[in-house]
Structures are given as structure tokens and as C-alpha cells.
């Protein structure tokens, strides 16, 4: 039986992170994961909409849950921030039946939808380890990524009850996945540290210090590359890397790729991009 999920792409795969879109579907096909795209799903809010109006974000996400529920599918996303935010709102709704009823009345009035509570939200990482299985992933590897890879989780999905059977504070799933695709997983402390994504545009100096600290920790542990399970954090770690170097006494150049890219490359889907990555590691890697 193929695994079936309602797919939520996260907030930036349509814009600043098209690589996720490019690589997610090939790996799903290889692993026999059937993804149904929720064309009507909105942004998860990234923890920002709720700063303006918490009930607004809850309602928008309840609409997304209701859409997945109508499909009879759980939600899968490759973004840790989206997984965390959706799960946070899901738990809030499930714990408060009065709130759920109030939000359902708004959904009924505006969309004709109802969320009954029968949906779960999964990050791709947890589906790969717990549902697909690392053995299967290992069997599909064509290009072992024999680099020293630091896996970045971020704090959003590393919350109790949101990260499958993995340890919220001392996780190992991403390291296990890295080993499965032929990589050499680096052990490092900052893998669940926040890089301050929601504050990028408003608290830039702080965020860049956070980012530089995370990157330096990975480099100190010998990483040649960082793989991010969070699409939003990837933006800071990668695109803002040069700017963050101003807040570091040492160079922090290091290639950062999305988790979906890493698996995709290992499966042999985008060999040209893998070749570019190898070059980047050779030139600017640790």
C-alpha cells in the first residue's frame, strides 16, 4: 500500500526555495509516497500571523486541516517551521472544544467546511524514518553523499509530541537519515537551536548572530555541509550567510542545502546539481 498524504509545501517553496519543489516530488515517487497537493492551502502563518491575530491564524490553519480531512489524508510537509506551526495550532484546537466549535462556525460561514479533528501533521523526516524506513531509503541510494554532513532540525518541530518517536532535545532521526544515504553524520549541539527566522526582517543583527553561531558550531565539528530540515531557516543559513559573517570572527562559508535536495541527489535525480554541490564543497566547504 503506497503511503498517501495531503501535501503542504511550506511557505517558501513557491518563491525563495524552488529547490524544495523540484526535489520533493521525485523522491516521493521513488519511495512510493503518494502526495495530493492541497492547492487551496494557505501559508501556515509561520508564527507571524498570530502576532497580529491569533484566531485568524488558527482559522486559516483549521481550513487547511479541514481540506486534508475531506481528502481522508494526514498532512505532510518538508518544512520544520510549517510542521511546528501547524502542529501547534492543531493541538490548540484539539485541546479546546469550545474554541474548535467557534472556529468551525466561522469555517462553515466562510468556506462551508468543518474540521472534526481527524488529521495529523507530519514532517517528511518523521515519515521517512518511521513509515518508509531507512532500509528502503538505503536501497534506493545511487549516489552516496559521502560528505561530513551536519543535520539542522531547528526548534519548531522539536517539540514534545510533534517529532514522532525521536527525542525532542537530543534527536537522531536526521543523523540516521544522513547515514542511510551514505553520508557521515556530524554530531553537533546547535542542531535544534533557533536561528530566529520569524525575526529576520525585524531583529536582523540578533538573527544573524544566531545564524553565525549555528553555522560555526557545525563547522567546528567538522561539517562540510549543512542539511536543513527547515525551509525557512535555510534562507537565513544560506542566503544571509555572507551578511552573518560580519558577526563572526571566523569565516562561516559552508554550503547549505534542503533535506529534500540531499535525498534527491542521493537517489540520482539531479546529477548536475549534485556535481555543482560537490564543487561547492570542494571550494568553500570546511
Amino acid at each position, binding site marked *: 500500500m503506497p503511503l498517501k498524504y495531503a501535501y503542504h509545501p511550506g511557505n517558501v517553496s513557491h518563491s525563495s526555495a524552488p529547490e524544495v519543489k523540484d526535489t520533493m516530488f521525485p523522491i516521493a515517487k521513488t519511495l512510493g509516497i503518494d502526495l495530493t497537493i492541497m492547492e*487551496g492551502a494557505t501559508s501556515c502563518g509561520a508564527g507571524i500571523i498570530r502576532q497580529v491575530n*491569533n484566531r485568524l491564524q488558527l482559522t486559516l490553519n483549521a481550513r487547511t486541516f479541514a481540506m486534508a480531512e475531506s481528502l481522508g489524508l494526514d498532512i505532510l510537509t518538508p518544512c520544520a517551521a510549517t510542521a511546528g506551526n501547524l502542529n501547534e495550532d492543531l493541538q490548540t484546537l484539539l485541546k479546546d472544544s469550545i474554541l474548535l466549535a467557534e472556529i468551525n462556525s466561522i469555517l462553515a460561514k466562510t468556506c462551508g467546511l468543518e474540521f472534526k479533528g481527524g488529521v495529523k501533521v507530519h514532517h517528511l523526516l518523521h515519515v521517512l524514518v518511521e513509515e518508509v524506513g531507512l532500509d528502503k531509503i538505503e536501497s534506493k541510494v545511487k549516489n552516496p553523499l559521502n560528505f561530513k554532513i551536519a543535520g539542522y532540525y531547528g526548534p519548531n518541530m522539536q517539540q514534545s509530541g510533534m517529532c514522532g518517536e525521536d527525542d525532542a*532535545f537530543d534527536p537522531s532521526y536526521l543523523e540516521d537519515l544522513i547515514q542511510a544515504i551514505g553520508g557521515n553524520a556530524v554530531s553537533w549541539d546547535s542542531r535544534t537551536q533557533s536561528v530566529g527566522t520569524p525575526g529576520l526582517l525585524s531583529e536582523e543583527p540578533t538573527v544573524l548572530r544566531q545564524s553565525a553561531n549555528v553555522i560555526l558550531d557545525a563547522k567546528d565539528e567538522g561539517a562540510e555541509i549543512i542539511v536543513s530540515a527547515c525551509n525557512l531557516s535555510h534562507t537565513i543559513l544560506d542566503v544571509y550567510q555572507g551578511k552573518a559573517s560580519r558577526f563572526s570572527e571566523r569565516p562561516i562559508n559552508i554550503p547549505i542545502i534542503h533535506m529534500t535536495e540531499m535525498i534527491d541527489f542521493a537517489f540520482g535525480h539531479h546529477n548536475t546539481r549534485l556535481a555543482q554541490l560537490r564543487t561547492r564543497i570542494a571550494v568553500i566547504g570546511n
Partner: protein
Amino acid sequence: MSDARSLLILYGSQSGNSEEVAIEAGKESSKYNLHATVKAMDEVSVSDIVGNTRIMICCSTWGDGEQPDNAEEFWEVVNSGDIPNLSTVNFSVLALGDSSYDLFCESGKEWDNWFESKGANRIHPRVDCDVDFEEPAKIWMDATLELLGIVEVESPMMVKTVSDSKLENQDTTIEESSDNNVISYSNEVSIEKFLESGDRNLSILFGSQSGNSEELAAKIAKKSSKYGLHGSVFDMDGFDFNSLSNHKRVLIICSTWGEGEMPDNAEELWKAAIEGTAPKLNGINYSVLSLGDSSYDLFCQSGKDWDRRFEELGAKRLVNRVDCDVDYESMATQWSLDALASMAAVDETGNFHEERLEMIRNFATGSDAVGASGEDGFHVPSLISVNLPVEVTIFRYDPEINSSGKDTWLCSLPGHISVLEVLRLLKNTHDGSLTFRDGHSNDPNTALSINGRLILPGSLRLDSIKSKEDGKINLRIDPLPCFRVVRDLLVDTWPLERNRESSKPWMIAATREGKSTSQGPIGVMTQTLATYLHSIKDYQSSVLLHASSDTTPFSESYVGPSLIVSAWARRNDPRISDTKKKEIDEFIGSNSGIKAETDFSSIRRQDANNIAISGALLNARTSALSQSSFNGRHGKHAWWYTWSIKSSGKVNDTVLYRQVLGPLGLLSNLFSGVTARMLFGFTRTGGNMVNDGLGMVLPPAGIGKMPRQFNSSVNNHHEVIAIFNELDGRF
């Protein structure tokens, strides 16, 4: 000659404490498949030491660093003659002492150094105990026994610490112990043989007036077979006292009659016992159960008489006499269990093997697992505590040489102890310079980072930590982030307190009408509000909450979540004055307030209570942004993000960058390489770069129509707009 699993436990004792520990260690040793012999130091010779591969020493210190009386002579002996090399000996020393004396634990130190000087292998570091010795002694005992249990006779095991710290120049090798996870705790085969060999007769004498003693004697005789004994019941009436010398094991059950008199059937025997011609009872092991009635002055006198007389005649009391009142069943049952086990531990030559006592108990109760039924009442099964292999890695910092690193210890520790106790143990036994904040288990100031989780170490048991596949627990202990490290795990929390003072956290209440109650007028608040305010202040430790934010270590001005949430609770207290509320609003909405927090998720995930606290922080932020009318970067970011969702259902980077950063911000990105990375894909792997780059650099992007050029709307976008219209008319 010692066998392959033998263990010699020596004690030098003045007050009995060392002896007590040694005997306990002897009992415990059976769990590690060791055959222990417990001896006082005045009972051993040098050959005993040379002939053993495992030796535990418990030694107290007397006076000014002197050996206790029963160790003095042996100490002189071992330091006077030629002692052969002891390289095959594995040893560890427990030193008892009193730190109020100058030469604290000196005797133990002397023994420790002596064994080392003779080439013996110190298998576990010496532990020096102060007057409260029980807990460290138990930890030493368990750890040493486990290590001795996995020692192969031919090869002494070495256990060393691993250190990559720049602070120490010690050896950094790990030597693996073989099969240290394979420890047999079962010794049933040898126990069975022991309980079957030689004379196993047990004599039970009863002196009875009403029949209770006789009945008990019969029951105990029946039960004795489970202990490998052949119990025979003897009426004291007609029993030949002179024949007692043929018995090795004797139990006496005797009631008291009238004013401390022997029961009728015991009178003659007692007369024979107190005669001057009564035979010596050397070699007899005995115990007395005494029945009586406490309403009489001479309670249980007969039993006391028998107990004293047997002792006078040289018999060895294995179990202390138990004096039972009229409700005797429970006490008698407990005595019988102790007495039978002890009698069973007497071998055919009449020697008592205390080290086998626990095994015999286990053997007997294991074969009699009747649960709550049966005349003995509950049979509590023996619980065996197996130590856990733990790798402890601790951050070290020495401010004197400004050097930091990490030290690692490989330990075998009981699962029930807390991480705080692990730290104490390491400090007491391995490195006295290890610095951390100690306190009771819930002391909020003891907080540390343990495997990435911020927690009070006294509340975290080792066995609650998930072990790795190899069964080992990795314990990574770091100081709390957000604070300057003073030394090792000790951080300086004073800046937080200074900020707390600056935040003026006190209440200035408004004048208002109180509710009239029987106690007079009193201010009240609703139950819902009271519960809410309590929930957001219900955190274990303010330093812990402060450190839970990943932002605080990197922000130059942020006061941290603990001060914000305290202020927010105060601000929502209905008793507060308008002036104070305004003051708090200014504090929360300032640049060092809640706006400086970059990500609530790091706070939320640390603790179940933090879910409510992060919710309160979110409310504080919403309040602060609203009061500033969503101006400034923080307000614009939240506002335009939300606006772009209404616009298309998706985030629009173009709108955000343009509206929040403005032209200067975009220029900053242009010259700092951000735009270049987006546009040219400097670190990308071949994705489509044009869409990304356009949004970054084209000024018209922020006008409002451009987003649709890049963002297609989600399906049924009208539903999104309807939700916005329903819930927030500002957009």
C-alpha cells in the same frame, strides 16, 4: 585459597561504621556473583591479601589521622616486612572520617597509597566520607562491586577517565572492559549445593504453656525445608541439655508464665541450663523468639533468660531475640524468616556464612512465591538493581587560564540517582575542582543544560534518559546558555537580577472598591483570570525560563522571557493602577522588551508550563505591536506578512522585503551579498533564480500590484478573504 570469584572485604573500624559498611558490601556481593569474605583487619595476615585478586577496604580514621585500634597492628605488619608485588590485586578503598579533623580520612588514604605502592590496581577511586557516610558509601559499594564483578582473575581491569579538556594533561586513553554488560547475578547452582551438603539439622526447642510456642515451632520446622534444613521440634520437657553440644543450629521459642516464670514444660531444662555444670555451648548458633504479655512487669522474661544464658555459655547469636506481645503472629513470622535464613547459612562445620545470607533468602523466597496468600503474608520478591553504563561529558572552563573544553567520564551508575547526584559523585570521587551550583532537587538555581534540554538536574533521574542502541546513556552537561560562565557549570545570574530590579516589578495598586466579605473589604478577581495569571507565573525557575529563549544569548538588549512574562502578569492584574500599567506597557514594548524575541518556539518547547508562558508572551507581543499601530520593523513585518496572506494565501517575499526593509534595507542586502546569493544562486544548486531575485531588487515590487506577478493565488482564494473579513476588518 581464594576461588575465581572470591572477594576479600577488610574493615578497620573504631565505632562500627566501617564494619557495618563491610558487612553490607558482603551481602551485596552475591548480586555480582562474588563470594565475599568479610574480615576485620586484626583477623587477617599478609597472605590473605596476596592470595586475593579482589579486595575492598573500609577503614575509618581515629584521632589525629591514626589507624583504628583493630587495624593498627596489621598496618605495622604490612609496612615492616617484604610484601610481594600485588599487581594481580584489584582494590578500592572507602575512607571514613570527620572533616572537622585536620587529617581527614587519613587512614583510608594511607591504605589507598599503600596498595598502589605495591603495584595493585585501583579499580575504583577512593571515596572519602564525612560523618554522613551512608549515601556515598552505598554508591562506592555498588560501583566497586560491579567493577570487581567483571574483573577476570588473570587480568586486572583498568578504568580511566577520558578527557579532551585543555585543562588537564592527564592520560586520555580508554581501556575497554570486556563483556561489562554481561554480568551474572545468579548463583543458584552453588547455593543449591551449599544447602544440600553435610549436616543440615535444625533443632527447634519450645517452652509452651498455652500451646502458642509449640504451634509456632511446628510451623517453622515445616518451613525449614525451603531453606535446605531438616527441622526437628523438641519439647523442652524431657530434653537433655547436655545433648545440645551435638547441635549446630538451635532455635528457641519460649513463652513466659506468671511473673516472669518459665512455662511448666521448660522448668526442668532451665534448671539444668543454669547449673554450674552446664556444658559450654561453643559452636552452637542460636536465636530466641520470646512470647509474652506486655501487661506484665516481666515481659518475655523467659525468652530473655534463655537468650542471656546461651550467650553466657558461648553460643553464637545469629539473629537478635524478638519479644512478642499477645499479637505475636507478624513479628514471629518475620523472626522466623530471618532466623531460618541465618541458620541455613551455617555450614556443616558450624561456621556462619553471612555473605550467603541474601542468596539464601532469594533462593527460599523464589521457591515460595505465593504472593499475598499463605501464612507468611506478603512475600516481597528481591529486587536487583543493575547499574547503568553512563558516559558523562561535562563542559569545563577555567577562568584563571581562560581555557575551556570538555571532560568525559565512563561510569557505571545506579539508574535511580539524579544528574545532580552524578555531579556530586564525580566531584567527590574524581575531580574536586568540578564546579556547579548545588542545592536540593527543586532548587531553581541549580538549572543546567542536559542533552540540550534545560532542566533542574535534581529532578532528572538517569533511568529516565533514553539510552543509545548499545545500552549506554550519554549525558552531556553544559552550563545554562544566556549567562556568563564563572567556572565549569557555574553561571553568573546576577545580570538577570539586575534587569529584574530595573524592570521595577513591584505592584502599584489602584485605589478601588473592595468586595465586602466576612473578613472585611477585600480585592477580588475572577477565577478565570486568577487561573490564567497563576499559570503563566507557574514556572520552576526564572533562570531556566530566561535561558529557554534562543534569542537572549545573542541579543544585546533583550531582557528575556522571564522578566517579560512577570511584567505581563502584573500588567493584567486587575488591582494594578493605570500609571503602573502604562509603565509596564512601555517596558514590554521597548526595544529590549518582547519585540526583541525572535522565535517563541525555543521557549515553548522546553517545558509543558512553557506552552502557557509562550502564549502569554505572544499576547504581550500582540499588545505591544498594536499599541505601536504596527509601525516600525516589527509591526510592519507582522502586518505585511498577514496582508500578503490575504492577498494571495501565500507569503510574498517581495512585499515583505520592500515594506519592512525599505530602500535602505534593500540596498544593505544588495551590498552585503544577500541579493547576489538570491539572484545568482551563488550557493544554490541549480534552481530557478529569476523569480527569487526579481522580488529582491525591483522597487515596484512593494507597490501592491507586483505580488500577483509572482504569486498565484491559492485555490478558492475568496474563502481566505472571507475569513479575513470575518475576523479582522483591519486588512
